[in-house]
């Protein structure tokens, strides 16, 4: 289970409205490399993960990603709430506005809805951990591309924090992969799925 804490992991207090930037940033909520996908990926993978240490890591990173989804949603909300329909025109955010007003709905920058097809839970520790490392790198690239376009230093600061988390998570998943590999090498097995082939 989870307990909600009424605070953000990192402070967000954006004063300057920017619906055009919101339209891009929302991709880190519901896009292919977004935080919602990240959280669902790790929290789904942990069930078949046979190593207690890695179950803990998937749980803890998966939970942190939920906090990141909340940070992104807060940014999108603060960038758009209070903007008139007139001022929404020409920002690129009109289609989102007519469908959701200033509500938060997870989609990619290209307008595609959040899709679990963007992540895998393969039930094989090596496969899943390599996917996780790739996912952290893809999210880092996305944050860097957003940082190339952003002009408000307040927004930049938050994106920069989230980018740094992708690097830390990549590092931890790399250690987890090493841990699993070492265990499999000890048994002198490699091409074997420790989540499935119990008697191998």
């Amino acid at each position, binding site marked *: 289970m989870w307990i909600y804490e009424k605070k953000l992991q990192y402070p*967000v207090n954006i004063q300057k409205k920017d619906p055009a930037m919101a339209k891009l940033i929302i991709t880190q909520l519901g896009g292919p490399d977004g935080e919602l996908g990240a959280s669902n990926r790790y929290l789904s993978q942990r069930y078949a993960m046979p190593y207690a240490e890695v179950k803990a890591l998937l749980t803890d990173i998966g939970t942190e990603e939920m906090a990141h989804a909340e940070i992104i949603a*807060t940014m999108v909300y603060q960038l758009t709430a209070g903007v008139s329909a007139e001022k929404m025109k020409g920002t690129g955010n009109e289609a989102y506005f007519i469908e959701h007003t200033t509500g938060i709905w997870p989609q990619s920058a290209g307008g595609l809805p959040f899709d679990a097809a963007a992540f895998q839970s393969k039930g094989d520790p090596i496969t899943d951990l390599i996917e996780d490392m790739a996912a952290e790198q893809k999210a880092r690239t996305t944050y860097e591309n957003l940082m190339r376009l952003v002009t408000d230093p307040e927004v930049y600061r938050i994106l920069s924090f989230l980018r740094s988390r992708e690097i830390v998570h990549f590092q931890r998943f790399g250690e987890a992969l090493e841990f699993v590999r070492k265990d499999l090498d000890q048994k002198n097995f490699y091409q074997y799925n420790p989540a499935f082939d119990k008697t191998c």
Partner: protein
Amino acid sequence: MKNKALLALQEIDFCIQELTLFLDMHPDNELALQLLSKYLNQRDTLKEAVEKQNGPLTNLDHSNNEWLWAKNPWPWDKED
């Protein structure tokens, strides 16, 4: 940043989160274990200060006869 107590709690929670992820993969690291205990102790005081200013941090932190959980600002509400 108006809410200094909240910022201090966010800072200590960041340290705790980093140590938690590190300890998952390095469970025998003594320095990390010591730091975690130290920060968890500090957290209690900081949490108290935040709750005094902002109200309960979770819906389990109910402490008097008034239901403050829904009343106080939510994280996406701006400070102005």
